């Protein structure tokens, strides 16, 4: 099937509002990651709401919208959460997206009969049973969303086990059997190539190029011995060259999206983002001039004829549980020795931990700073590490932060002002959510104390006394007039 030709775009984040407003001619599409625009009124419940103001802002941009889901992957043996479908449909309707994409990965597993989220997209088992599991998930999702579905090729830092088929072959079988589109993430392919998995060219020779509806490009960086998909900078020149050669061979391409992680925007500068967008627009504008008349499916059709062995020492569900337990630090040893010995396990652990530590600092920033300043960085990291062994990851920063401060409270850590700082940040989050006024008592002057933490330093003087910090609420979060500037700083 074909999809409409939309053009060049960005993964949307409010940090990029300025880029979008100043360069309307360069951006024809905004790709929305729906879960980043959901909020949880109660950090410990499963109920989520669409952030109506964010939705309104996105709707106000006069460009096409696409939806790229990030918490609902279709590569594993556990089906996507039913609870997310209504929110997806609400956003699809509101933004009028022509197609939606999800990851050919998994993010749920079980350990000791406890099912949990991994906090990271993990690679599925690439066997005949793995294909079957992914096809089942995709078919279920296709039946529940009102637009066509494309699946994204993932990053895989692990070594390929001898019993697994190649990345390209796996994608070819899954997409042909499930009859869905492909979101081809060229930076993921580059990452895999640099780290020693399949080369980009070999991968491309194995997949049905007529199913590619969308491309992703991004920049990455080295972390130890691995090149990682950090979305941290300019698109590498070699990737732009690869895109330029590939695009004329994609008869049904609808969009090219530049992915940039907001934390890195300040570091690389808006100008650099603009240059990459200009380059991508040139490639897009020339796509028809260079379009290859001899698109061939022959090689990949041969690949589909290849027999895939049905005997595997491990089932998809076992693979998912073992891999997830290793990377979330719940165990050091699984029955799959090749996994235990793979050095990428340590890398993925570190990546998951970077997300978890960042979520705590984002949601309970003053608490985290107070602990870092009072205990020292090393001791604070040890505290985080102990917490990670006790609790599995949460996808929402507010939930991860609340779990962490509860853990801190249970440890009775002796740090001056800790309980008041936690109480203040908890009240702040609740007031943002429900708009209600709250009063937080302090036994010392809170303003000078918080100001010091805001500056990242230890408070110089403590003015003891009876203080109350009154948080004046506004409109609750699901109201259309809630002011987002509440957290601009």
């Amino acid at each position, binding site marked *: 099937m074909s999809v409409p030709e939309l053009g060049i775009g960005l993964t949307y984040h409010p940090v990029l509002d300025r880029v979008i407003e100043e360069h309307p001619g360069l951006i024809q599409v905004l790709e929305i990651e729906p879960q980043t625009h959901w909020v949880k009124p109660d950090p410990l419940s499963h109920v989520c709401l669409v*952030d109506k103001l964010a939705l309104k802002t996105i709707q106000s941009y006069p460009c096409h919208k696409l939806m790229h889901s990030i918490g609902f992957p279709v590569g594993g043996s556990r089906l996507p959460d039913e609870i997310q479908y209504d929110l997806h449909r609400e956003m699809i309707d509101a933004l009028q997206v022509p197609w939606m994409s999800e990851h050919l990965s998994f993010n749920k597993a079980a350990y000791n009969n406890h099912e949990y989220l991994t906090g990271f997209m993990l690679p599925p088992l690439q066997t005949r049973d793995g294909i079957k599991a992914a096809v089942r998930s995709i078919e279920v999702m296709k039946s529940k969303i009102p637009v066509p579905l494309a699946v994204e090729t993932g990053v895989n830092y692990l070594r390929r086990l001898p019993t697994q088929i190649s990345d390209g072959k796996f994608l070819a079988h899954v997409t042909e059997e499930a009859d869905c589109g492909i979101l081809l993430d060229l930076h993921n392919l580059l990452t895999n190539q640099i780290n020693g998995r399949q080369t980009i060219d070999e991968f491309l020779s194995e997949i049905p190029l007529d199913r590619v509806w969308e491309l992703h490009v991004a920049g990455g960086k080295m972390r130890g011995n691995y090149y990682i998909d950090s979305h941290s900078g300019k698109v590498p020149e070699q990737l732009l060259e690869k895109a330029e050669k590939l695009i004329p061979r994609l008869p049904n391409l609808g969009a090219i999206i530049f992915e940039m992680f907001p934390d890195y925007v300040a570091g690389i500068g808006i100008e650099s983002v603009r240059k990459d967008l200009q380059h991508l627009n040139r490639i897009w504008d020339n796509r028809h001039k260079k379009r290859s008349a001899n698109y061939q499916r022959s090689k990949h059709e041969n690949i589909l004829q290849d027999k895939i062995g049905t005997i595997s020492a491990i089932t998809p569900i076992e693979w998912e549980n073992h891999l997830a337990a290793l990377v979330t630090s719940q165990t050091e040893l699984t029955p799959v020795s090749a996994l235990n010995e793979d050095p990428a396990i340590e890398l993925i652990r570190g990546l998951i931990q970077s997300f978890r530590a960042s979520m705590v600092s984002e949601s309970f920033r003053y608490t985290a700073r107070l602990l870092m*300043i009072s205990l020292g960085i090393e001791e604070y990291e040890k505290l985080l590490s102990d917490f990670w062994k006790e609790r599995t990851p949460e996808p929402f920063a507010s939930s991860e932060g609340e779990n962490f401060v509860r853990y801190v409270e249970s440890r009775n850590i002796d740090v001056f002002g800790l309980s008041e700082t936690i109480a203040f940040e908890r009240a702040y989050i609740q007031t943002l959510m429900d708009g209600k006024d709250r009063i937080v008592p302090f036994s010392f002057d809170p303003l000078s104390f918080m100001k010091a933490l805001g500056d990242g330093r230890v408070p110089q003087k403590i003015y003891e006394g009876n203080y109350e910090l009154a948080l004046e609420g*506004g409109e609750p979060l699901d109201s259309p007039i809630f002011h987002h500037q509440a957290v601009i700083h």
Partner: protein
Amino acid sequence: MDSKAEASSALSARAGHVVRISVPVNVANDFTLFTNMLKDLGGRLGCKQCISGAACFFDLEKDYVVNEKGQILNR
């Protein structure tokens, strides 16, 4: 907060009164002079954006906090 206001609120507290400091929620998180990179609620409290790499916010925070001598703690 300037030192005059700081001293004033401290003096009031010493006089035995409860000092109520009212902070509208839209500035309650503005004590800090640090970073305007994450400006939306989703960025602060919601799901992280999708990457298969590392998040750097914690690293930035580690490089921001200093000890009483003003030295960066993350060494």
